[in-house]
């Protein structure tokens, strides 16, 4: 892929406004998505790993569903739920005047939808691997479940949580299909890097490859930065 890139036109490609817009949009929406995933996914993973209840298997299956949906179908599912005439989208629009599709929030929503399972399942795995007796020790010291989770369980499972976040972030970044189906492909608003690459590839294969390379470099750089900082801990 590196070999196939047209190096002569690369500088020009880099300076183009669509690229800069799309890259910025991709990075910000993926980051926002992973933040939401964490907020939703951490408690969910904890419940799945630590609380025994009827229907746990079903909850886990439900969480896993977006994982096995082909992205386009995920987009359709999202539309069914959050579209302007969707089950949730319609009342939402009526109440607040806000609707997800074709907005940057819609992109974030699509990302959260496809990434959440990765975050939840990776973190659940890590929580299950960790020694549960430390939770008990915290309880004898009077810690609530929340305090225990925050100060004991989560720090001990940190490598797994970071892994989950990396997976979720990367999944968001590379997401193509759900986003374009649910949100369209508007430069500056919903045109993420994969969408831009898709469009560019229609007319200029080389430019598309150059864009892919840019995206690769940026994301690997971000991953490299993140990982050693966090996984160095234990």
């Amino acid at each position, binding site marked *: 892929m590196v070999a196939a890139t047209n190096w002569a036109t690369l500088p020009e490609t880099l300076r183009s406004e669509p690229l800069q817009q799309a890259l910025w949009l991709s990075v910000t929406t993926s980051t926002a998505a992973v933040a939401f995933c964490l907020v939703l996914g951490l408690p969910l993973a904890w419940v799945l790993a630590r609380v025994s209840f009827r229907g746990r298997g079903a909850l886990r299956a439900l969480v896993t569903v977006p994982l096995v949906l082909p992205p386009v179908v995920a987009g359709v599912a999202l*539309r069914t739920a959050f*579209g*302007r*005439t969707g089950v949730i989208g319609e009342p939402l629009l009526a109440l607040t005047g806000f609707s997800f*599709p*074709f907005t940057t929030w819609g992109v974030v929503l699509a990302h959260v939808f496809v990434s959440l399972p990765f975050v939840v399942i990776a973190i659940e795995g890590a929580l299950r691997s960790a020694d549960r007796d430390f939770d008990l020790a915290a309880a004898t010291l009077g810690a609530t479940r929340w305090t225990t989770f925050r100060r004991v369980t989560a720090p001990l499972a940190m490598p797994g949580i970071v892994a989950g976040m990396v997976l979720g972030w990367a999944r968001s970044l590379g997401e193509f299909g759900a986003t*374009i*189906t649910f949100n*369209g*492909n*508007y*430069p500056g*608003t*919903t*045109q993420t890097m994969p969408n831009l690459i*898709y*469009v560019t*590839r*229609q*007319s200029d*294969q080389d430019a598309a490859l150059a864009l892919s390379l840019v995206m690769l470099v940026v994301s690997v750089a971000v991953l490299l930065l993140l990982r050693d900082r966090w996984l160095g801990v234990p």
Partner: protein
Amino acid sequence: GGDDQAEGQQELTVLAAASLTDAYEELAATFTEQTGAEVTFSFGSSTDLAEQAADGAPGDVLATADEASMQVAEDAGVAGEVTTFATNVLVIVTPPENPAGIEGLDDLTGSTWVRCADEVPCGRVALAVLEAGGVTSEPASLEEDVRATLDKVISGEADAGLVYATDAVAAGDAVETVEIPGAEEQTTSYFTTPLSQSEDAGLAAEWVELVTSEEGQEILVDAGFTLP
């Protein structure tokens, strides 16, 4: 336009089938020259775009590569007057220097060749062309869209592929083109319509006008389209 800016800069948003990318970007330049309005595209598959338009996606004009998709928009009541503005014929493309020596439909038999899946517009056309040509050999793959078909040939994975003439033009030197006699009997048509959610119906109408004008048609022909 779909995305009006405070200072009154006019904007036009077009939802267009991905196969129109090259031609439409050129048309946009002309349009901006003539009207001063910025053009923004949301390119995608015709199916997606029609559904999005039906769901109220911001946009002034919709352009699809098949009638079925346009019907979706019409059924949803977001379409205005529908115009056919271009057609596209199938050609055979091969990698440069045509390693498998493909000279016509008959040579496909015995080579690794690809075409679009039956379900997508270019596949339906291909099916008709092949039937007319009496070809019974099976392709190595039924591609999701015409772009993927072209891609297999450019990359050398396939010895030949059935794509639109526009794609062959867009690919330039990356492929060699073999015309199919009688292909013009089996074309696919492109449809366009102003959308009811347009906030500037005048501008939308101007775009449709440009596309069907002589100047516009010239650009389309340059890109490999034929005229209806």
